[in-house]
């Protein structure tokens, strides 16, 4: 990672912390490139998380990521990195920030922010003022992703 990239990351992190309050989503604090506290104060449910992860109208995570343990599911995408072993590479807080708003770490990423309600351009009516996932769904997906250890 170049120095420039780190600088961009730090700048984005600062703006995220501020915009979290502005957008009206439940507040969260970003520190050390992570959101350390649960968004709901509750632990996530990995079983429901798996459902949300697979649901094409919710997480739809396989559209972009390969997960070897989900081989029974068809059509894993190649747009993002494979998630095998991701929980051994990143802490829970780091993964939470990636799901909530990956642009805090890479402003040019294709990955949608799954927990952001507004500040978008020309959102379709049905999705206006809504985040892709609600806070508990983020925690549930996270709990499921945390099972992906090497």
């Amino acid at each position, binding site marked *: 990672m170049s120095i420039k990239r780190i600088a961009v990351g730090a700048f984005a992190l600062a703006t995220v912390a501020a915009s979290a309050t502005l957008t009206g989503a439940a507040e969260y604090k970003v520190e050390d490139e992570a959101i350390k506290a649960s968004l709901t104060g509750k632990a996530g449910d990995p079983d429901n998380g798996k459902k949300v992860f697979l649901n094409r109208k919710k997480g739809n995570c396989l559209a972009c990521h390969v997960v070897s343990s989900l081989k029974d599911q068809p059509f894993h995408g190649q747009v993002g990195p494979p998630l095998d072993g991701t929980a051994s590479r990143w802490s829970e807080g780091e993964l939470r920030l990636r799901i909530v708003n990956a642009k805090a770490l890479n402003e040019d990423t294709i990955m949608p922010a799954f927990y952001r309600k507004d500040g978008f*351009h020309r959102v379709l009516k049905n999705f206006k003022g809504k985040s892709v996932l609600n806070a508990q769904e983020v925690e549930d997906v996270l709990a499921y992703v945390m099972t992906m250890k090497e």
Partner: protein
Amino acid sequence: MKRKALVLAGVGAVALAVPSVMTFAAEDWGQYQVGDKRSGYTFAKAETRAIQDDDFENPGMLWVEHGEELWETVDGEAQKSCKSCHADASDTMKNVGSTYPVFAKDIGKLENVENRINRCRTDNMKAKPWKYDSRNMLGMVSYVKRQSFGQPMNVKVDGDAAPWFEKGKEFYNQRRGQLDMACKHCHVDNAGNMIRANTLSQGQGNGFPTYRLKWQKPGSLHRRFRGCNKQVRATPYKTGSDEYLALELYVMYRGQGLPVETPAVRN
């Protein structure tokens, strides 16, 4: 000693494997690739390409034939057909598919083939305009663009077209919708990667109107724009709108040099 030899053999195998992989990746796509620009043809499955390659199999040709009939069909109060003024399309329309959209000085804006046809119908033929993705419009656009079949895309983006080009480029790179993606995130950054069951293409426009197997009919480039916009949960613009005209110019520019493939076949 024995062990060392094995290691060396292993290294040798890797070294040999690398060039063979590279040879495989550099497939020769002929006219469908110009520099790093690749037609959607090169991302399509072999079965799909085979349908496009055979004029008798290609269902888009039915619309080309329909357009050919319309070309000489009198319509409107002025009692004219296209042929009344434009004679032989293979002669008069031969550079249209490769150069549109163009800036039309007489109306002071950018115009694509669909909008030009409707202007001709209302102003010259005194006929009703066609709906954008109607059978007649798709037929006529397919027939007109077919007259440029195989010609390299060559749109003009300077002069009066420059502000439209800039607007199109801006659109292309603007994130939109709840999924917050710009055209470029899929079609520049991820072209060639699988998203679900589909390989992302460069989003080239040189084959439109394109027969989509999913649609079971041809569709306009603007219809495709609408589909893409809705997929990222963004409010689409209208077909034929200024926003999509500008985007069409930018997309065609991205494919500069690729051959006109109308009617292309895609999944």
